[in-house]
């Protein structure tokens, strides 16, 4: 099943809305959208994962790649809207310590 991906440009930053299950099959779709966004020098990117109910290591790997790309292009990336399951995977893997996750806006788990 495909991911539901939508991009929105705000005045100071861009938002990428992602929905669906991010796994080995769908992760390339996320990569294709997210990676070019990080390559714009100095851009601020917010990734809204509210609609994501499943993610595994392939999906987490995309965010590591995006983080590295952002770092080398002086852009920033922040995640928001993680449900408790998705959040848990970021913390088990230690990814929450290297990537910005907006806890205040975190959606409550179903």
């Amino acid at each position, binding site marked *: 099943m495909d991911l539901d991906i939508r991009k929105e440009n705000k005045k100071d930053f861009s938002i990428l809305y992602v929905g669906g299950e991010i796994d080995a099959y769908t992760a390339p779709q996320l990569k294709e959208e997210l990676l070019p966004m990080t390559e714009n020098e100095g851009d601020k990117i917010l990734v809204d994962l509210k609609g994501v109910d499943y993610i595994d290591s392939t999906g987490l790997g995309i965010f*590591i790649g995006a983080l590295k790309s952002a770092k080398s292009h002086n852009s920033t990336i922040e995640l928001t809207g993680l449900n408790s399951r998705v959040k848990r995977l970021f913390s088990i*893997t230690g990814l929450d310590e290297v990537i910005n996750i907006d806890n205040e806006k975190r959606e409550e788990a179903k």
Partner: protein
Amino acid sequence: MGNEALDYIEMKVPAKAEYVGVVRLAVSGIANRVGYSYDDIEDLKIAVAEACTNVVNHAYQEGGMIGIGCNVYKDKIEIVVSDKGQSFNLSDVKRKLGPIDGTKPVEELKEGGLGLFLIDSLMDHVEINGEAGVAIVMTKFLKRDEVEHHVDEISASTNAQKQ
């Protein structure tokens, strides 16, 4: 008593990324039937998907199959994911197993390699067998306090069979 598998379910799917979701859904259905909690089912889904993804990414040069076997016991589920592809050096893999090191600079982070670490974190017991292809055996126990009703039912029927 109760050491024999109550049921065995087997599947074979092509080692392609688009089938990982199919396996995930099937395993979620089996775990749901056994009586696992929502969180445990999610853990099982991730673990089995990681094992299948490893097969998709590493086992074959030119296509092959993923074998999935589920042994359902009274108090646990045991999932075997196997392939007939390339083996890998087990001790190498184990040495690299671990979460992301937050003290390392971002440039040095690796995009892969979290799969086996996740399997290890989410399952209760994991064994990897690395000759003539790879087989990974993952076990997750059914937590009694959450599903006491189911456990009683199953053990009652096991006893009945024995008599």
